[in-house]
């Protein structure tokens, strides 16, 4: 019959390899962006809980047990600066591999990983200090919100660090090139997301109290 109305088998298979033609965003990156959208909604649920409770308290916030004060630790400011800068570093690494510079990618990702781990270490220290002051997950609504929100963010930082570690180990075996580096794009998108969540967390929990 008429082959004109048919897509040839070979074309079809070639199409499938690239998702029916190579137009638009890469499929894996699209998947990551959709995943990030769902993650945003997860944090949105926690933020909604925070503001819904916060609204009831007016100036009596943070709601903590008698005699307990919540103050910002300089360590947290430092951690924030480190995390935010790491977004620039990972982006630099992405730009390097887009130009085909594998060594640049690996250096940038190693540094980002180190910065992420530093952030986590500082956060853990902050947790210990807060616990000493009597602020913890149980016992107060502020504590519940604070540790749940920052804790889940910390877990996401850890997830990002693991992702960066995988990219790094693949990068060191030379698996990425200027044409083929979608995993790098996806992990950096995720890392930026983790960063943006922290900006909102930092502003909400520490600054706009």
């Amino acid at each position: 019959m008429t082959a004109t109305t048919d897509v040839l088998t070979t074309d079809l298979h070639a199409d499938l390899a690239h998702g029916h033609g190579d137009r638009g965003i890469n499929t894996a990156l699209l998947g990551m962006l959709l995943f990030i959208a769902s993650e945003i909604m997860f944090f949105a649920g926690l933020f909604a809980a925070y503001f819904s409770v916060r609204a009831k308290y007016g100036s009596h916030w943070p709601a903590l047990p008698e005699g307990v004060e919540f103050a910002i630790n300089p360590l947290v400011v430092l951690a924030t600066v480190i995390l935010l800068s790491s977004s620039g570093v990972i982006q630099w690494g992405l730009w390097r591999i887009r130009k085909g510079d594998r060594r640049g990618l690996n250096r940038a990702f190693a540094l980002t990983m180190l910065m992420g781990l530093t952030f986590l270490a500082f956060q853990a220290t902050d947790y210990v200090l807060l616990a000493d002051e009597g602020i913890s997950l149980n016992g107060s609504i502020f504590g519940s919100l604070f540790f749940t929100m920052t804790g889940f963010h910390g877990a996401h930082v850890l997830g990002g660090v693991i992702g960066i570690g995988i990219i790094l180990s693949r990068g060191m075996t030379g698996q990425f090139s200027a044409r083929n580096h979608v995993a790098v794009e996806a992990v950096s998108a995720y890392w930026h997301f983790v960063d943006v969540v922290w900006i909102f967390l930092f502003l909400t929990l520490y600054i706009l109290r």
Partner: protein
Amino acid sequence: MATTALSPRAGAYPRSRVYEWLTTTDHKKIGIMYITSAYIFFLIGGLMALAIRTELAAPGTQFLDPDIFNQAFTMHGTTMVFFFVMPMLAGFANYIVPLQIGAADMAFPRINALSFWIIPVSALLLFSSFALGGAAAGGWTSYTPLSEAKYAGTGQDLWLAGLLLNGVSSILGAINILATIFKLRAPGLTMLRLPIFVWTVLVTSVLLIFAVPVLASGLVMLFIDRNYGGAFFDPAAGGDTVLWQHVFWFFGHPEVYILILPAFGIISEVLPVFSRKPLFGYKAFVVATVSIGILGFGVWAHHMFTTGAVFLPFFSITTFFISVPTGVKMFNWIATMWRGKLRFTTAMLFAVGFLASFLIGGLDGAFSASTPIDFAIQDTYWIVSHLHYVLFGGSAFGIMAATYYWFPKMTGRFLDERLGKVHFAIMFVGAHLTFFPMHLLGISGMPRRIQDYAPNAGWQDLNLLATIGSYLIGIGILVLLWNMFVTLRGPRTAGDDPWDANTLEWATTSPPPSYNFDRLPEIRSERPLFDLKHGGAGHAPALAPGEGSGR
């Protein structure tokens, strides 16, 4: 047929069929596993419903202790929502969407397998609670403080963990579906040529991505409350009980559309095929579907009118608004059938049964949107009636239509039409006999979620009627299972395109080869196969499906 012969099967590779199914990443096999497991959960949830109805058939305690009764209705609702309707529709989406858009598989086949295999694991978590001191008993909504540590045991924790895991499956599935629809469409298949089923699955997936994570946040907060001394929902510790309801229903109302939109899509595939007409108002239908998706996020507090914690006029008006696009669809469907050449196959009967039943459920919804009425019917059997009219008369009838409609594609065999009609008749009568009296019970004040009622309350006859109806539904399901059993032992007689249908899944063999298509017809409308067969758009020569492969 010749198309499959073009690409001969890979050489003998010795592995058992069981191994093949357990490790498959083929969207069709995964779809069938989703559908099969969802039917198993349908039976489990159905048995719980029968137990509930048996207890309520007469006043007094006959069958279930109050404690077990509470577990039964909680697990009935949870099972039907999260383990029957959602995986069932995910299964049909899995099987049908790649075929309808002319793709060889989903965008992420291994994640697809992961999404499916999470379901049995999450079910194991949930159902193990029966053996570990009793299941959750606070209703499928698990309102605080009833679900807090003070009142609920380990079963509640397993409920939280099971649903959290189930949600991961839903989110991964939705991401996969969206990436598939956006990236793997065949050449020529523009967004406004997508089959309506694909459109409804697309909007459903967006809803899943935006709604399920919010439930997840609620689940972890409740888990922290229960296990680590959190204060989220505990007013004594500074938290807010009603907060749970907000979080739950911010998920819960989009969830309602998650459960019904794909059923809308199924109906919109079945009605045109068996009316021999295109769907009336394709674009209006797409706009209505998207509007429902958007408005669906603005109505959640109509579940909370009587809490006194929400702004009534806003949520009342948005709820009335959302009935408009749903009404548009009703007219789409009626106009599609209007002056059509109707063929009352079983799939068509269920589609028409859907229209009748869902209309009642929808009108109930518009009643409940009116706050004064809602204050009177809150937490009565009216609500039980309403939600079953939309979920059983809607989603479940849609699922039945899909089962009869796509069974020949999935297996190459027709389900027996005579048994099918018996199944439809019993189930249709049974459904209305079960759920219609609940309206009257609700208006006369019978509260939902009670294990017993006074003999002099005047609720006895209607309850007995509802119980008889529920047994009829059970018999109907047995007829369906028998039909499947008999059919699967019979020969493959269905052929590629048994219904003379419109969309691409019928342009390949039944069942399709693992790679789906050797070739695709040119796509110039939302009915490419119809164009191919009947020379639509005035170009293609008539080409019977399956005959177009000789080169």
